[in-house]
Each structure stands twice: as structure tokens, then as C-alpha cells.
């Protein structure tokens, strides 16, 4: 008897196999929005270097409805990425104290706390308060 193993080609079917794969792709695609927003900031810096008129025009562009929608999307994706990523930190950074591992919530919670604190510092430096 001869062997003739059949190789089933992998199609994009896997994406819909379980919601976890869609969530994963969402997390991965968040980089497009976050990267786009970063490019926008670089563009803003370039406009700032060109003088007050260019900077004012840049600020005005930011206030257009399309720009606001894109920024809201970027923010939503950035938050989604950060939350899903921080929730995974206990897997990557388990801490063992004596016989027991520190609870997952403590490790991810510490990340969320530092995230909140740093955001506050940034807002303070930006003169938001």
C-alpha cells in the first residue's frame, strides 16, 4: 500500500473559524491607524517648522470632520491595542513569589496603572490642566 497524504491548502477561512482570529487581526491592523496618526504628527512638525501660517493651516485641517473621524478611529484602535496587549502581559511576564505566581490581574493592573500615570504626566506637560 502506497502513501498519498493529502495536503489541504490553507485559505482565509481561518479568519472566520472563531472570533478570536478576528480580534487578533483587529489588533494587528490597529498598527495602520496608529502608524497613520504618527505620520500625521510628523507632518505637523514639518508644518510647524515652515512658520506660523503653515502651522495654523495644519491646525485647521485637523479640525475638518474627516480628520476628526480618522483621529477618533486612531484613538479607538490605540486603546484597543493597548488594552488587549496589557491583558496579555501576565503570560509574558509571570512573577513567582515563593511557591505561588502573582495573580494575572496584578500584573496587567500594574501595566494599566503605569499607562494611566504616564498619560497624566503627558497631559500635564502638554498643559491640559
Amino acid at each position, binding site marked *: 500500500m502506497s502513501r498519498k*497524504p493529502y495536503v489541504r491548502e490553507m485559505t482565509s477561512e481561518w479568519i472566520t473559524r472563531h472570533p478570536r482570529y478576528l480580534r487578533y487581526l483587529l489588533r494587528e491592523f490597529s498598527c495602520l491607524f496608529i502608524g497613520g496618526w504618527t505620520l500625521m504628527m510628523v507632518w505637523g512638525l514639518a508644518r510647524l517648522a515652515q512658520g506660523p501660517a503653515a502651522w495654523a493651516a495644519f491646525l485647521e485641517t485637523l479640525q475638518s470632520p474627516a480628520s476628526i473621524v480618522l483621529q477618533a478611529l486612531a484613538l479607538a484602535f490605540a486603546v484597543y491595542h493597548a488594552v488587549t496587549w496589557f491583558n*496579555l502581559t501576565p503570560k509574558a511576564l509571570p512573577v513567582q513569589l515563593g511557591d505561588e505566581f502573582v495573580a494575572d490581574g496584578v500584573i496587567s493592573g500594574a501595566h494599566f496603572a503605569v499607562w494611566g500615570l504616564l498619560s497624566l504626566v503627558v497631559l500635564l506637560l502638554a498643559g491640559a490642566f
Partner: protein
Amino acid sequence: MSERRVELDVLRYNPETDRAPHFQRYSVPCREEWVVLDALNHVKENIDPTLSYRWSCHMAVCGSCGMMINREPKLACKSFLRDYQGVIRVEPLAHFPVERDLVTVIDDFVAKLARVKPYLIPKEPKALEAGEYRQTPAQLKRYKQFTLCINCMLCYAACPEYGLIPKYLGPAAIALGHRWNQDSRDGGRDQRQEELAATEGAWECSFVGACSEVCPEHVDPAGAIQQVKIRSTVDWYLEHTMPWLTK
């Protein structure tokens, strides 16, 4: 005892006669406490003796009966029929070549497992009369969850990275290599790093996390892989910025 009928759509493939696999429907009278494996056994014994599949222990220990049940990697012996509605689709584990029906070719996994040297490589040779290697409960706890792997390969079927990049070492092999690296008695980490820290090792993983979700023994291969990445990164920095520390 209540009895109901379930419909199974089973992927069939006969390498001697078929050019490609096809689904075959079986109607099985089942009992409340039956699992998918019981239904397959009923088919084999009463309806169609040509149906091929692997199984052994019927108690989620041997890791033989992994298959796709309604598109999710599952142990057939741990999947209760009462938890499913409608026709149940049963296929061989995804990402592996099909040998026949639900039997897959697992040579790739077995070869990868051997490459990570999943056994104790003592720090120093120790004579038998010098006694056993001692370990505290805390040292055992450090790696114990990874010892629960039963090599069922559900994690490989769940991992899209492995499906797309078959040369990827994969979740279970990395978790088992990491298991020995975490063992206080072991000194073989340098030997395993060549495989674990390679591009086709841990770095092929983009942390989908599906491997840990489908593991029937609640092992966390995704965690092991990220820990390998962190350790490898630390290794790299130490080697390149403080070489005197590593030698």
C-alpha cells in the same frame, strides 16, 4: 436513559481511491453522556468499518483523538455531543496532511519536538550513588504547567502562523523546550536556544494566543513563547553590550 440522534459530517479521504477528501454524513443514535469519539466508535462498529481515526485512552490523557469539530481543534473524547446543535462537522486536525479520513501525518511535529531536546540535560554529570536531583516545590511550580502537555497538537491546528509558515517550530515544541529551560536541574538551555530563539522558533509567533485557548490541558504555550522571546532579547543585549558578563 434518554437517546437522541446526531448527524455527523465526517471528512473522508481514501488515498487509494480518492483524489480529494469529501464529507460523508452519518446518523448516530447517541446517549446523553456520549462524546464525539463515542459516536465515531459507533459508526466504526455498526455503520462503516472503513472509517479511520486515532484514539486510545478516551480520557483526555493520550492526546490521540485531536480533530476539528465544528472547525475548532478539540479532543473527540472531551467533546460532549450534548454541547452541539445540528449537524456536527468532524475533520482531521487543520494544518497537517491527511493520511486517511481523520488520521493526519504528524511527522513534522515529532521531528520538531526532538529538535528542542525535551529531556533533562544535567548541569553536571552526577554519579548514580550521589543521589537524586533535588527540587523545592517552588522550583517545581516554575515549570509544572508545561509538563501537562499531552502532544495532542490541537495548538498547531489552532495556530494560523503554523498553517501559513509550516517551518515554524510551533507552540507545543517551544513550550516543551521552555519547560526544560525552566527546570532547576537542567543545564541545556544553550543547546535549545538555537532552535527556540531562531527566526523559525519563538520569533515566528505573532501572539494570536489561540494555542493556549484550545489546549485541553490548560497549558499556556503562548505564554511560554513570549517568555522565550523576552529571555532571548535579554541574551542578545547582554551578548552585544556586556559580552564580559556572558563569558
